[in-house]
């Protein structure tokens, strides 16, 4: 009969009882006080934070639309876009070449950049939680190069006619990415989590193997195609056709939603698999969902933009420092910030040496690499960052 009291008596037991070494003796007051000040994630804070970030994203998009080989004023850009929304074709044609540049070149490229950055950051968040390492990143871990190898093989076999064709290319990239994720996870599972040195070592080795295979693939194709592959490998955003953008949007939104759906289990998985299990998480299921989705998103992103590094590591890391580790907020916030970061980086890539362009992968690596080194040197292996 003690049990009956025990099961429902948790609250009863706590009331009117003095915690023997507690800071307060009035447990009701303490509960109220602690309850009021517990800085848990509330729906209100979630909405405010994400609304602010979404608004900022819109501002960054408009800011970046202005820059390029030819400057387009903000007023003019807004004017053209509003005409598109009103379906005012005659009005758009009267604007002339500026409208073509904005609508056919700059806007699709900015949208592409936003989604690629968002996907990379979301994948980074998921991988970091599963591998229990805040430095994990699809590029550093060699998952992107696995996906790139898959895509290169597809090109070699002549399945993807052009680099941007959304055909079998993402599928091959997905398979390549999934293979590398499985290898990385096997290594991590042997340790319970992925220690930084193992993470780096696994990444170096996987990257070396995949680079060799990619180079082999490149040497097998005719010069024209090999140039295409090489340029794409460097990580470049080129203006895609709108249908291709639509397909990527499906990946981006679908994949992010799936990851987001696993936000609470991901929170618990950062404690380690045993602790997560003891708190009721079906660990194997969650792992499969997150790995599969990560490989899918990486495959989709790599097949359209090649190897863009460090976005998946730097962005979640920086966002976590500011808004905390709760994945319910961290995931969507990182996706938005990742998108903003990449279009800003791409704007730099296409303006610093205008009219020449540098690959955006160069910009993100130059920004992210030093940050990574800083973390390794000053944050003691990424523990409890």
């Amino acid at each position, binding site marked *: 009969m*003690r*049990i*009956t*009291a*025990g*099961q429902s*008596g*948790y*609250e009863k*037991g*706590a009331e009117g009882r003095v*915690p*023997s*070494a507690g*800071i*307060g003796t009035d*447990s009701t007051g*303490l*509960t109220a006080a*602690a*309850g009021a*000040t*517990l*800085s*848990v*994630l509330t*729906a209100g804070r979630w909405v405010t934070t994400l609304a602010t970030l979404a608004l900022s994203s819109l501002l960054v998009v408009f800011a970046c639309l202005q820059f390029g080989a030819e400057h387009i004023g903000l007023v003019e850009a807004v004017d053209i876009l509003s005409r598109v929304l009103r379906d005012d074709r005659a009005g758009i044609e009267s604007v002339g070449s500026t409208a073509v540049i904005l609508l056919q070149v700059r806007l699709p490229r900015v949208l592409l950049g936003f989604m690629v950055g968002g996907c990379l950051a979301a994948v980074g968040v998921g991988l970091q*939680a599963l591998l*229990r*390492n*805040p430095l994990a990143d699809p590029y550093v871990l060699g998952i992107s190069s696995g996906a790139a190898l898959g895509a290169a093989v597809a090109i070699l076999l002549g399945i993807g006619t052009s680099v941007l064709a959304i055909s079998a290319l993402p599928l091959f990239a997905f398979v390549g990415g999934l293979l590398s994720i499985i290898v990385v996870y096997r290594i991590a599972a042997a340790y319970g989590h992925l220690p930084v040195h193992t993470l780096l070592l696994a990444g170096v080795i996987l990257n070396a193997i995949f680079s060799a295979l990619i180079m082999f693939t490149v040497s097998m194709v005719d010069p024209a195609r090999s140039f295409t592959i090489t340029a794409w490998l460097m990580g470049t955003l080129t203006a895609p056709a709108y249908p291709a953008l639509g397909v990527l949007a499906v990946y981006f939104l679908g994949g992010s939603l799936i990851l*987001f*759906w*696993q*936000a*609470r289990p991901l*929170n*618990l998985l*950062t*404690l*380690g698999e*045993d*602790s997560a*299990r*003891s*708190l*009721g*998480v*079906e*660990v194997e*299921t969650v792992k499969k969902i997150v790995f599969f989705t990560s490989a899918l998103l990486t495959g989709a992103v790599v097949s359209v933009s090649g190897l863009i590094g460090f976005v998946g590591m730097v962005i979640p890391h920086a966002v*976590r*420092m500011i808004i*905390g*580790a*709760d994945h*319910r907020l961290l995931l969507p916030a990182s996706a938005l910030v990742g998108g903003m970061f990449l279009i800003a980086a791409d704007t730099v890539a296409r303006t610093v040496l205008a009219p020449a362009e540098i690959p955006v992968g160069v910009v993100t690596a130059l920004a992210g690499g030093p940050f990574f080194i800083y973390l390794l040197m000053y944050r003691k292996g990424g*523990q*409890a*960052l």
Partner: protein
Amino acid sequence: MSDRGILENGFVYQVRRLKFSYRHSAGGQVSRPDEWALKGLDLDVMSGEVVGVIGPNGSGKTSLLKLLAKLLRPQEGAIHLFGYDLGEMPQDAVARRVALVPQDSQPMFPFTIAQTVLMGRFPHYRKGGSLGGFGWESPQDIRLAAQAMAEMDVAHLAHRFIGDVSSGERQRAIIARALAQQSLVLLLDEPTAFLDLNHQLEICRILRRLNEERGLTVMLVSHDLNLASQYCDRLVLLKDGEVFRLGPPEEVIRPDVLEAVYRCEVLVDGHPVSGLPRVTLPGRTLNVER
């Protein structure tokens, strides 16, 4: 699924012929008998008991605890929890009945203590049966977490990062998380390992009180034989993956039993207050000539 009826029978755990090897989980085959971490273990745990699991390093204590929490799957034998086959229970159903305080948790991400304790509410959120992880903590969740924090004396640390506090404070936060889980069974792996004397005593008293006031069934693994002797109703002494002796402290904490298992000389006398057995190492002999 109501556990009340089953509780009337009094059995929390019924463990039968439990065999477990880490080689199996790694995909290997067990070729030598000493590769079994547990070799056909039988154990009954009654509701409302405080059971101490003791034994030398590598005797299978932690493996047993992990098997009881369904973190590991046995190769042979069966575990029944409140009459249900543990192997067939969903993980969240286990987590609503059994909370585990692991040996050492190394936080890698900046969660606050409050967030950590609130994670104990997860299995209840999942009661709806969905796999999903989206939703907010209810006021009830927050209240229970705040109570658990007050109980474990970590309420003042609510906003500190779990990685920034001392290991003793972290351990208390993890126990608070287990309390927030509102389970009927509490499993603890070396709960006092990182604690100073004050907090060791504190935790033992809290466990005892939870047991007495709410009928919480407690199983704890400990290297501290004295603590186990003072605070446990029954002790399970493991040796090489088998139960060597099972019974009240008086029957287990005896020089002949301990010497057979630990292979060293020990002194056992009565605790000055409780009269329960107390273990002392022989120490060095001093030539006192006074």
